[in-house]
């Protein structure tokens, strides 16, 4: 057998970085800010009640300074989740899906459809209030290579899921018997 090791001109491959990133639904800003605030609200309530109870309901300078620090962190976290919204986004090609996130530590993960094991739509309590949903995509590569796209309109999340599943199945029809266990397990 003669082996040909021709080099492919990688300059002419379809490029990911020129893709248009689709932002998340506008309402998702509210969801993420609400989520952050809710977390800190619980933290503040917990702190205030524990501190006051253990200090026989006396308020002093230590109390105010710790409360101040918590509120400051809450403010920064809220600001970050607001700014981070603009970075988050996804794009879908014929054969793969990409998701970008991270205001400071930027990351973009790409998953080919023919490596997707399982795909599901989930809604949290806050999501439901704004008619949003999350799309979760799982591969065999462990938790590091799983993908969650939040803040999608409910219908488009379901459409996207159906599209991804049809793409990943047509490609993998021959070996579907092997992938089956993974489907069974998570559904």
């Amino acid at each position, binding site marked *: 057998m003669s082996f040909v090791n021709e080099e492919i001109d990688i300059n002419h491959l379809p490029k990911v970085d020129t893709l248009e990133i689709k932002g998340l639904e506008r309402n998702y800003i509210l969801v993420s800010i609400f989520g952050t605030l809710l977390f800190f609200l619980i933290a503040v309530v917990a702190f205030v009640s524990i501190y006051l109870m253990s200090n026989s309901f006396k308020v002093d300078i230590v109390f105010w300074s710790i409360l101040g620090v918590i509120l400051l962190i809450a403010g920064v976290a809220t600001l970050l989740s607001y700014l981070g919204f603009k970075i988050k986004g996804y794009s879908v090609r014929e054969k793969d899906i990409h998701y970008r996130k991270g205001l400071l530590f930027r990351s973009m993960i790409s998953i080919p459809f023919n490596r997707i094991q399982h795909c599901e739509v989930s809604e949290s309590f806050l999501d439901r209030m704004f008619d949003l949903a999350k799309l979760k995509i799982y591969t065999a590569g462990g938790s590091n290579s799983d993908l969650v796209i939040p803040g999608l309109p409910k219908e488009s999340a379901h459409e996207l899921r159906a599209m991804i599943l049809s793409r990943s199945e047509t490609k993998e029809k021959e070996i579907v*018997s092997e992938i089956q266990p993974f489907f069974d397990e998570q559904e």
Partner: protein
Amino acid sequence: MSRNEFDFSVPRRQSKFAILQIIYKYYRIILRQIWPFAIIFIFGGKARGGLTYLLYFIIGVAIFSMIWAVVAYFKFYYYISDGELVIEKGLVQKDKLSIPIERIQTVNQEQNIIHRLCNIVKLQIDTAGSSKEEFSLDALSLEEASALRELVLSQKRTIEKKEVEINSELDGEIKTYPSSKTIHNVGIIQLLKIGLTENHLRSGGLIFVFFFWIYNQLEDAGLDEELYENYIPELSWNMGLYGILVFLGLFFAVAFIVSMVRSFLQYFNLKLKRIDKGFNLEYGLLNRSISSALDRKVQMVSWSSNFLQKKINYRDIYIKQAASESINLKKSMKIPGCNPEQADHIFSYFFPEHQLESLKSSGVNKYYLYRKLLYISPVLIILIGAAIYLQKLAFILLSIVLAIYVWSNIYLSYKKMRYTINNKIIKINKGSFGDVQSIIANYKIQAVSLKQTPFQRRKDIANLKLMTASGGITIPYIDLHLAEKYRDYLLYKVESSSENWM
């Protein structure tokens, strides 16, 4: 079929020897729980009167667990029905575990010392799922075990007609492979060399933790420290350089012995065999472990060689198979004591030579070096400064040695970080005083991710992370446009490949 004597459709008990095996198992568990208390009872100053009670207690527990073992044996059944392997067990709480046969991935055999004496085996049944519950038959006679395996195999075959090759993975047993060929065989001399070049620091660390733990336990039990204080030499910076050297010498001597014994027990009579489309590995003196790996299930192959191993040209080879996360560790096959030729030979089964002919390997951006130095250097300089300020010679020397070690470590790990991406494989070389090489085939990639810290964004560099079904590899600090090109290329390779990654 010659093995029709076993009817697996009716509930069956394990081999009679299972009682022995269960007792052994219980005793081991009990011993593990009890021995610290025993030590405390014997040495702890305040509780000396409790010794006889302890003895009664131990005897009581021993008798009780013996009865328990017998009952457990009679309450344990396994059978096959409706294409499912079922285990029923439990005295107080009844458990019924079942697993569809087509979902069984591998069947591994294990033998500890009791197994070997009684001529029985433990069957470990592995599924693709991430279910954590152990599905194993503790004690089957050799014939029964192989009959069961054969049956599981043939049932699986009728379910998956297409995948004929899959059958071979269900077979860990050597005798069913007439074509098997021994590739690597560890003799006594090699075993000594493996022990000699173990990571002694790690063994030492283990002993350290162990003694520390015993000390804590003794203290909790009311050990009278002052009683023994006179016997223990004072350990402090005042004892000077000589004392530290003696201490270090002792530490390494003990660590050395521990790693020798450990590797001797673990890797005794190691045999690596090439079977039909896969590898079969068995080793162990007291606990013999047998495992197999099918070529197409293997996602990543690597070798590593630490500072000592490099001196005698030894490599540890790791063959990593696809697995769910909970059982990941078991799925990595480690083959110690291979020389470079053997390593190349094993690699050649996964990657034909022409694939390894690297076009060119590239290094990473120099910021990889600068950043690491920038983070760690202030700590080291402060440490040396403090040592000089305190004017303790031993402290000064130690901190300088530490600084030189850390700096050269960082420099070497920058120098040795090299990667190659060609149209078949991705190869990563790294290491500092030792060497590590990992290779994955392009089409085994599950996902590609490109990461940037704020600093990397300013400098237009990125980390490229490639995920496979048995872990990921990262190419750190490469130019952004290169990282993007590689991502596009690898995605193209994965998406255009019709090869089955598992």
